[in-house]
C-alpha cells in the first residue's frame, strides 16, 4: 500500500505505540508530578498522531476533528492539574507524589 506521501501506515502505528509507551514509562518511572503531567501529554500526542494518520489514510475528516477536541481537553486538564499542583505545593512544599504510598491494604 503506497499512500500519497509514500509512508506505509504501520510506521505511524509503531511511532504512536513507541510514544505512548514512553509516556506510560514516564508516568510510572518519575515521582515529580509536573513530569508526570508532561508524560500524560506525550501519551495524548501519541493518540493524536495515530488519529491524524488514520484520518488521512481513510480520508475521513472526523479523525482530525477529534484531535481538536483532544487538544482542548488536554489544555483544560493541564490548567486544572497545575492549579492543584500549586495548591499541593503550598500545603506540602513539594511536588513529589507517590501514587501508591498511602495505599493501605
Amino acid at each position, binding site marked *: 500500500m503506497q*499512500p500519497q*506521501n509514500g*509512508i506505509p*501506515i*504501520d*510506521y*505511524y*502505528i*509503531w*511511532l504512536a*505505540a*513507541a*510514544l505512548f*509507551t*514512553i*509516556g*506510560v*514509562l514516564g508516568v*510510572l*518511572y518519575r*515521582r*515529580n508530578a*509536573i513530569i508526570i503531567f*508532561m508524560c500524560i*501529554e*506525550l501519551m495524548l*500526542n501519541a493518540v*493524536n*498522531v495515530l488519529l*491524524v494518520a*488514520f*484520518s*488521512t489514510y*481513510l*480520508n*475521513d*475528516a*472526523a479523525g*482530525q*476533528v477529534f484531535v*481538536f*477536541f483532544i*487538544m*482542548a481537553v*488536554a*489544555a*483544560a*486538564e*493541564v*490548567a*486544572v492539574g*497545575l*492549579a*492543584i*499542583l*500549586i495548591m499541593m*505545593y*503550598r500545603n506540602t512544599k513539594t*511536588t*513529589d507524589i507517590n501514587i501508591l504510598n498511602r495505599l493501605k491494604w
Partner: protein
Amino acid sequence: MTLNLFYFLSFLAVLSALMVVFSKNPVYSVLYLIITFFTIAGHYILLDAQFLAVVHVIVYAGAIMVLFLYVIMLLNLNRESEPHKSNILKFAAVICAGLLLVVLVGSLKGTEAIVQQSGKAGIGYVKTLGEVMFKEFLLPFEITSILLLAAMVGAVMLGKSEKTNDTI
C-alpha cells in the same frame, strides 16, 4: 525523500520523548517535550494535515508548555528538588512499560492489510475541517466550551491563595 524525513522526525521524536522522561532537571524536560511537539507537527505536515500542524504548535508549544514552564519557574523546581524513587520501583516501571510495548507490538502487527485507503487528498485543509466541525460536530464544539468553563472555574478557585500574604 519523504521516507527519510519520516525516519528523521520519528527518531528525533522518540529520542526527545525519552529525554523528557530521563532528564534530571524539569526545565530540560519541558524543552525536550517542546522538541517532541515540533517533530509531531512535522509529522502532521507530512500527513497533509497542515491546519492541524499549525494549531498543534500554537496550542501545545505556545500555550501548554509555557504554562508548564511558568509553573516550574513559580515553584522554583530544579535538580535538587527531584525526589528519589527506589530502584525496585524504577525497575518495575521499566518492566511494565516494556510489557505494554510487547503487547502493543504483538497486537498491532499486520495492520497494513486491514486498512483500505481511498485516494482523494486534501481533508487537512481549513475548509474541509471547518465544514465538518461546524456542521456535523457543532454540538461537541459547544460542549468543549462547557469543558473550558469547568476548567476555568476550577483552576481559578484552586489557584487563588487563601490569604493575600501567602508566599506564592
